[in-house]
């Protein structure tokens, strides 16, 4: 039994290469086409076409098409969100700068620096949290598709 499994390994390895690499898939196709091409059953085409019109197949095909559009939309949304966050940070900085100019002492400078740092850190955490949630949403929707 173990022996037969050992014998089976090479053909499985060939198949694994052919299933992942276009080059090996082409070579396998060439080999079969030149040496072992057979005529497919005449009813194969009609059975595939009939099956492809069934609801379950149509649903998967449509949802796969839709998920590609959604992925594009989701990517666009992330870019826009990142842009909005950047603009928010930029707009908040002049305000800090004005407060910095208004205050005269060095102790105030230090406190403004700390305040700025805290605000930026807080913003960064929120953006991180948001992107993490978005990422998790993306992963879970991908998992659902895979199932």
């Amino acid at each position, binding site marked *: 039994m173990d022996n*037969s499994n050992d*014998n*089976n390994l*090479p*053909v*499985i390895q*060939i*198949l*694994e290469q*052919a*299933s*992942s690499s*276009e080059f090996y*898939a*082409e070579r*396998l*196709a060439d*080999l*079969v*086409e*030149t*040496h*072992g*091409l*057979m*005529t*497919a*059953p*005449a*009813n*194969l*085409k*009609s*059975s*595939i*076409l009939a*099956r*492809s019109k069934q609801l379950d*197949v149509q649903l*998967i*095909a449509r949802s*796969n*098409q839709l*998920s*590609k559009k959604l992925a594009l939309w989701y990517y666009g949304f992330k870019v826009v969100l990142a842009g909005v966050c950047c603009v928010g940070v930029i707009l908040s900085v002049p305000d800090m700068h004005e407060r910095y100019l208004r205050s005269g002492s060095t102790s105030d400078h230090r406190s403004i620096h700390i305040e700025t740092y805290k605000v930026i850190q807080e913003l960064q955490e929120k953006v991180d949290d948001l992107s993490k949630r978005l990422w998790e949403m993306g992963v879970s929707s991908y998992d659902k598709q895979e199932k």
Partner: protein
Amino acid sequence: MRKINAEAALEQWIDNYQNLIFSICFQLTNDYFDAQDLAQETFLSAYKNMSAFDGKNERAWLCKIATNKCLDYLKAAGRRQIPTEDQFLISCRDTSPAPERDVMEKELRQELYDCCMQLKSPYKEVALDYFYHEISIGEMAAKTGKNVKTLQTQVYRAKAMLKKQYRKEDLWNG
């Protein structure tokens, strides 16, 4: 429009590559009916994932799907005979000249005929018409006057019986 395109593409792929995909599946499984099922699954999988296809090399893409399907089949528990590398290469080389290829196809068809003949009525007639003579269910319905649904059920059952019969024959022949 997109649906029509997808269906037209599927039909074109079947026309161009059904022999190749069926041959790959048959060479790897050595089972006529499983090869037919795997070839069907390959095209359906391609149809479902058409949006993921880059449109460059459909032949290689379909072959990749077919080999993936065959891999799953070969790796699945309880498979009887997995062709070894030598067996696979020999099976390809053995049929290289066209006359020998014809002999192999004739042998395969004879085997199919024998299996059909061993079934009981009405499955024998249905199997002979559908699998051996390759008559469509619509034509069979017109010929026999039977209901299409009845014929579909009978074809489905006959296929399951033929699969068993085919494997039994295979075991007897070693």
